């Protein structure tokens, strides 16, 4: 039983870690703000879910699990909201999502 | 382990000096306050570092824990953090007033205006 939980949480944690890493790389490598945000917000939520679930499995039924649940709920509510607000704000400020080829991209970054 | 341990102190030195540099070399008043904030954070780090006990845990007596890091530096730093934010708040309020009075927050421009 214990081993099963251990394996399950190990899998979850590892997947979560991978998710986080991918998000990190995405934020660094994506070409413009909106795409970077896409990478960040998606992996943020997914990574958080996976990692906290993994930890929850380890914690078992205790106060800690309740707290973890609260944290997860919190992250799930706030993270997308923040991303949304940021995107709206950027859009309102007049930042255009990039479309088209790489030449344009370099131009855009040069302008900025 | 020793060298790794000393690393904390070196970071303390570097942080201290980065902050200090911002304070003395930057003419922008807000930048100075940022520097001040970093400068103080470095000291906090130093205190907390030497309060740490190898194999110890946070000094909150609970289940199973036996060895505790020293609570005293933590108490001191709690106080110091509060002092730091208070200073920063007051400093920022001053900056706002200076901006209103001089129209600038660059030290050299203010000095120019002050010179009779």
């Amino acid at each position, binding site marked *: 039983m214990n081993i099963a939980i251990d394996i399950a949480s190990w899998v979850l944690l590892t997947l979560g870690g991978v998710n986080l890493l991918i998000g990190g790389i995405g934020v660094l490598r994506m070409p413009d703000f909106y795409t970077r945000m896409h990478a960040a917000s998606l992996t943020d939520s997914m990574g958080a879910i996976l990692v906290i679930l993994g930890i929850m499995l380890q914690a078992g039924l205790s106060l800690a699990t309740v707290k973890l649940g609260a944290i997860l709920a919190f992250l799930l509510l706030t993270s997308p909201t923040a991303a949304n607000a940021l995107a709206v704000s950027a859009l309102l400020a007049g930042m255009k999502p990039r479309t088209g080829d790489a030449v344009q991209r370099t131009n855009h970054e040069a302008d900025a | 382990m020793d060298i*790794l341990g000393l690393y904390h102190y070196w970071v303390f030195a570097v942080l201290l000096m980065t902050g200090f540099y911002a304070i003395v070399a930057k003419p*922008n008043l807000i930048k100075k306050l*940022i520097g001040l904030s970093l400068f103080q954070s470095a000291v906090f780090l130093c205190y*907390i570092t*030497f*309060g740490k006990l190898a194999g110890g845990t946070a000094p*909150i007596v609970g289940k199973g824990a036996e060895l505790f890091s020293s*609570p005293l530096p933590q108490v001191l730093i709690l106080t110091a953090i509060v002092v730091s934010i208070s200073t920063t*708040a007051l400093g920022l309020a001053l900056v706002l007033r200076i901006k209103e009075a001089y129209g600038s927050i660059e030290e050299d421009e203010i000095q120019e205006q002050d010179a009779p």
Partner: protein
Amino acid sequence: MSTITLLFSIFLLTLLMITTMAIVRTRNLFVAVMLMGIASLLIAASFFLLDAADVALTEAAVGAGISTVLFLGALALTSERERSPSSLPLLSLGIVAIVALIVIYATFDQPPLGSPSAPVQAHLTPWYIESTRELIDIPNVVTAVLASFRGYDTLGEVIVVFTAGVGVLFLLGTGASASAAGAPLSEDNAGLRHYLIPRILGRLLIPFILLLGFYVQFHGEYSPGGGFQAGAIVAASIILYSLLEGEQRALLVIPQGVLLAMMVGGVLLYGAVGVAGLVLGGNFLDYSVLDSDPVKGQQWGILLIEIGIGITVAGVLISIFHAFASRGAA
């Protein structure tokens, strides 16, 4: 501290150094403030690794939260860009280098990190941990030292916060003047009312944040937290409210007079507990005499003064925020 956590810690500290360098280098003050938030989180994480949970909590609340809000408030009213200095500050670099060398010089004779025989660990620490168990009987030794053994320092700390509040109000005036009670709520000063999703979510969360604040306040004897952190959290929730709903509405909810009363009341509560000790035959801030059972008395005392701290801190922080914000509106 096991080697691996030490390595984590070193990694964090390296990131921290990079961040601070970037902070000093950048000419954009907004960027600097954002990076300050990161630096603060890194420092807080390091504190956590170094067993200082209470401090980590405070640093997060103050450094990443309140401090960022204040800096942004100031930036909004001044300018975001820093002018480039006229010349290379060689003198400053020289001074800084010399001081750095002196500090590094000092590190070589230090007792090794974490050694149990270091004076810090050997001299006072065992007594504190023992006495907390015996005389105060609360799990959080940090709270015990903070509130009782060195309660006078903490009184000083509250006074510092109070002074900062008085100072900011003196310099900037109260926020109340900008939006006198009864004035129609203008759309102009409406905060983030047009951002629908954040607003709804924010309003949803505020009660929970307040709840969390009270939890931190009253659970401070058992886990990390206490009056100061709780005050900061409560203040943060009110600040969130005024960000969402605008300055004026926030001031309608908690008027400036109430804030002032909070500032004053907290300090006076703290002082009153101290004087009570004096009147009941003990020394100033001696809580043992508050109850027939000295241990109970200590716990009562700590509870009361923590409440005092929380009230003052919340009052001051909110007042400062309003003072900054109203300056912009004016």
